[in-house]
């Protein structure tokens, strides 16, 4: 028997690793990968709560699938943006994309 809090702690650790990556990585693709880790952590929470608290309803699973959909859309558009930026600026380092600052 696995206590609910184990799943929640693993999800929290995964979320915080992703948070650190989003704040600290220089590369835009790496930032996108960290966002995917955070979305996965949220999904673990959704499924764990579904299984432990409301297994007679499909709510948790359905929302996990919606999160999956949004993650796929986000990855497609995000990577298209990165490729477009690389074509124009020859760089994908987030710090160097500062046109709006000046």
């Amino acid at each position: 028997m696995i206590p609910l809090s184990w799943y929640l702690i693993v999800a929290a650790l995964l979320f915080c690793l992703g948070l650190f990556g989003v704040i600290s990585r220089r590369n835009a693709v790496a930032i996108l990968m960290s966002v995917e880790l955070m979305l996965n952590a949220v999904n673990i929470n959704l499924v764990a709560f579904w299984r432990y608290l409301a297994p007679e309803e499909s709510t948790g699973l359905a929302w996990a699938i919606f999160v999956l959909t949004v993650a796929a859309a986000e990855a497609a558009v995000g990577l298209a943006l990165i490729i477009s930026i690389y074509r124009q600026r020859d760089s994908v380092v987030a710090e160097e994309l500062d046109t709006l600052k000046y």
Partner: protein
Amino acid sequence: MTITIQQVVFIIISAITLISAWIVVTDRNLFHAAIALMASFAGVAGLYILLDAGFLAASQLLVYIGAISILIIFAIMMTRRLMQTTESPYNSQWRWGILGALLAFILLAVLIFQTWPADTFAGPAIVSPATLRGSVTDLGEALVSVDQFVLPFEVASVLLLAALVGAIVIARPEDSQ
């Protein structure tokens, strides 16, 4: 307290997930990070199987490992300078990143142990397989029934269409109008 086989499996899968996630956020070489990301997604799929969500685990394998990881690897290969490994992978605010992530984790851990201490919900709710709403049939009915998720479902299809068109328009070279 003795440790059961299920708990051992859980610990191994969680360790795989978290160690690969650590590699994703720390490795200089983005290609290695992308491979570790796939391992991390596979670990999360394992957690779904432990939670009796088999269909979601299959979707995780197809969508994340099959599609998103490949898309990320494509992006890494198309932007060649990403593969160089001499520069630091972090920007100037990485100390604040560590601080913020640690504070967030402490906050979450306190919340979790206050609200759901390990002795409550010591195991998943005991339900007969007939009432466990995790099968593909249950999920399919929930997604298209009017009193449940048909509206979010349709909105999600519009979102996917918009993402499809948007990705093509954004990534198209300027001169091929």
